[in-house]
């Protein structure tokens, strides 16, 4: 029986970067096939080639044993390939129905096509248990359902091969479980699923076979039943890695920062931060868990002084900060609060700056870097060289533009900048987003080291593994409010997941009843 999809010697080069090199892949029909690799391993490039976004330099693709020429997304769709992108490709103010028929309207006038599509969608929804209100406006749907629209879009176009690119990044654990049940149902109906992810847990839980990519090459193919997380992790990075962080028991002492009843409204008057109170002690890491967009970013912005709260107060370094007496980000820095923002491209770096310039941002007025009139380039360069050596930033070239470093190395530049100022409190958002495993280890070690030197760290991350590995104490946020707090020792994935979906209390009540 021919393979549902087979890649033969696919290579793709972007300038100096060899994104894909001689990739071969065989996926039997009706299986779920995982492709795992670090960020930048070339997974997304490969999928973009299959979906016709890029053309491969060499090699070709076969579908059901027949060679296909895929030069555009339309060719891919015609070949029966559908894709669910990491960032949904939906028109938000369109209805579900309009989104599904876009590009497959069935005639120049919508009327006829829409009627047929409605019937077809009902059939699909029934067959794969993908229930959805087809007249709902997409932006009013929760992300889990938006993803379902994407899946329906692909199936409506007759996809027999479904590619999902990092599908669980925006989902709660419960939504993710639901997704995997859907994928199993698709598989039972004979659909072939390609699952791209960097999460080992998902690969182990849902796939039949798995292929590992590293630095643009396909380095291994395994049957999921005959492999392990550790085995795959090793293949991904090419060396033994620990997925846990070695750290001693925390020794929390005095409260360095306390916040009471912080609230913030957005420009539409919606309360984004709801009466958040917390205490941060010297020598501990306080983790804030939550699905992205539940007030964590607002909390970081308020604490770091980037935006002002509307209600509540912050006590820090002997100062009381309120809406009437705010302090801006520079003033907070002067009080020895450092901040590694969640989005390093938007807030942490100026990507057009050279590394040594980016390495002083926020501290650029410090007398250390300034002469009488001009900035002291030599001091800046020397310091940058030292830090690059100490933090293992590659390539160690202070004149390289920050945009040209990999994600992990950019993040090291940002974290080094903040940590080396020896702050009392470090706010750190998504420290390892888009960072490869080797660098994650390094960054985690540095965070623990800072804690052990008696500093306080507030960690915001959407990665549960990271929260659980690093934190001493965990706060869970949902819809702008704190919905739970627990000691890291008592935390497990299920409890946190339920709290993140604000379903923990219901579940407890269900148990007692």
């Amino acid at each position: 029986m021919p393979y549902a999809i087979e890649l033969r010697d696919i290579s793709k080069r972007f300038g100096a970067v060899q994104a894909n090199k001689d990739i071969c892949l065989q996926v039997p029909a009706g299986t779920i096939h995982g492709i795992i690799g670090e960020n930048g391993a070339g997974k997304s490039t490969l999928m973009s080639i299959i979906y016709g976004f890029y053309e491969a330099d060499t090699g070709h693709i076969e579908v059901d044993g027949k060679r296909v020429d895929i030069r555009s997304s339309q060719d891919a769709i015609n070949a029966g390939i559908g894709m669910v992108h990491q960032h949904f490709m939906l028109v938000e103010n369109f209805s579900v129905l309009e989104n599904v028929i876009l590009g497959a309207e069935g005639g120049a006038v919508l009327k006829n096509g829409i009627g047929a599509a409605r019937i077809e969608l009902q059939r699909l929804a029934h067959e794969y248990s993908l229930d959805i209100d087809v007249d709902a406006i997409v932006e009013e749907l929760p992300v889990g359902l938006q993803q379902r629209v994407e899946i329906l879009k692909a199936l409506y176009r007759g996809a027999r091969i479904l590619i999902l690119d990092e599908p669980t990044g925006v989902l709660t654990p419960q939504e993710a479980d639901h997704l995997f049940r859907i994928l199993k149902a698709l598989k039972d109906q004979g659909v072939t699923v390609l699952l791209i992810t960097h999460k080992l847990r998902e690969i182990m839980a849902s796939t039949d076979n798995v292929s590992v990519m590293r630095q643009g090459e396909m380095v291994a193919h395994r049957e999921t039943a005959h492999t392990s997380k550790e085995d795959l992790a090793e293949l991904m990075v090419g060396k033994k890695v620990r997925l846990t962080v070695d750290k001693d028991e925390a020794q929390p002492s005095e409260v360095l920062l306390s916040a009471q009843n912080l609230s913030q409204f957005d420009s539409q008057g919606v309360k984004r931060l709801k009466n958040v109170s917390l205490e941060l002690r010297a020598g501990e890491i306080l983790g804030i868990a939550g699905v992205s967009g539940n007030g964590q970013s607002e909390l970081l912005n308020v604490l770091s002084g980037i935006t002002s709260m509307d209600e509540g107060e912050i006590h820090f370094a002997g100062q009381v900060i309120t809406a009437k007496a705010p302090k801006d980000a520079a003033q907070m820095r002067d009080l020895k609060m450092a901040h590694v923002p969640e989005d390093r491209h938007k807030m942490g770096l100026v990507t057009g700056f050279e590394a040594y310039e980016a390495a002083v941002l926020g501290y650029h007025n410090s007398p250390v870097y300034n002469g009488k009139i001009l900035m002291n380039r030599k001091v800046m360069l020397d310091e940058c060289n030292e830090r690059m050596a100490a933090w293992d930033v590659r390539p160690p070239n202070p004149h390289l533009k920050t945009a040209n470093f990999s994600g992990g190395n950019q993040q090291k530049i940002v974290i080094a900048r903040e940590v080396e100022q020896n702050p009392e409190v470090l706010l750190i958002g998504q420290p390892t987003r888009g960072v490869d495993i080797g660098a994650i280890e390094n960054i985690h070690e540095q965070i623990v080291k800072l804690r052990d030197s008696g500093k306080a760290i507030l960690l915001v991350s959407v990665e549960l593994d990271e929260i659980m590995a690093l934190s001493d104490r965990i706060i869970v946020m949902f819809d702008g409010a704190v919905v739970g707090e627990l000691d890291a020792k008592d935390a497990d994935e299920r409890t946190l997941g339920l709290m993140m979906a604000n379903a923990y209390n219901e579940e407890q009540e269900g148990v007692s009843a």
Partner: protein
Amino acid sequence: MFETLILMLDATMRVSTPLIFAALAGLYSERAGIVDIGLEGKILGSAFAAAAAAAVFGSAWIGLCFGILASVGLAMIHGFACITHRGDHIVSGVAINTIVAGLTVTLSMHWFGMGGQTPALVGDARFLDITFPFADAMESVPIIGQIYSNLLSGHNILVYLAFIMVPVTYWVIYKTRFGLRLRAVGENPHAVDTAGISVSFIRYRALIICGILCGLAGAYLSTAHNAGFLKDMSAGKGYMALAALIFGKWRPVPVLLACLLFGFLDAVAVRMQGVVIPGIGEVPVQAIEVLPYVLTVLLLAGFIGKAIGPKAIGRPYVKERA
């Protein structure tokens, strides 16, 4: 009193016509994600081309063809800059306005040597007013007859076309495949691209329609409303159309109403010329001419709520390198 109202509404229709064409032109362009501040330039360019061709060939229809051709040409330059080369939409639009403002006068001097005007158009070189059947007979019937013969009858064909274009646009935008894709491309071009449709092709087609409609607006000005081209005769109509487009929240029927409101204020301004209001004195015309703009700012500032445009507007589409 009623007769005055009829006369003012009649004037409103005439003044609104180019606004309606231009605002609908902007609607196609902006719904597809292309900011079009160059409406003004396209109107002016078309006005000149239409008047010049009409003068040379003695036919308003040939003039109209040239007007549309000029306007579509300018729209394609805008497309080449903004779609193909991902340039800044505002810069390209302003450049078009500036070039056209200078070029029309220069060419006109060179070809006709009449101080920047084109020769006065007579006879078939202009679009003439169409009188509906029995209009004369109906005039004596009160109200209905007056509306029929004085308000509805007696306009040139372009006026009627402008009003017909509103339901047509509504149908195209909301009821056809092209309209669905056009709206999608203005909201999230990535969604369109991944659905296997060319973003650029849709945007170019939207700009062609935009060019045609601006061409009609310009030709109306120089070969129907007036009898020849005058320097800067578009007189900010493109900008006013843009204001009407925002005011009408990029939707055909509200846009029509905004154009009619602006046209009505314009008609009032003409009517108020030299009128002395007791206690105030003579009202400066400028005070009324400024009303559409003041109104737009005021209404947008709070009375009609936030005007949320197409989400991807003004942003060049770049295929993401994953």
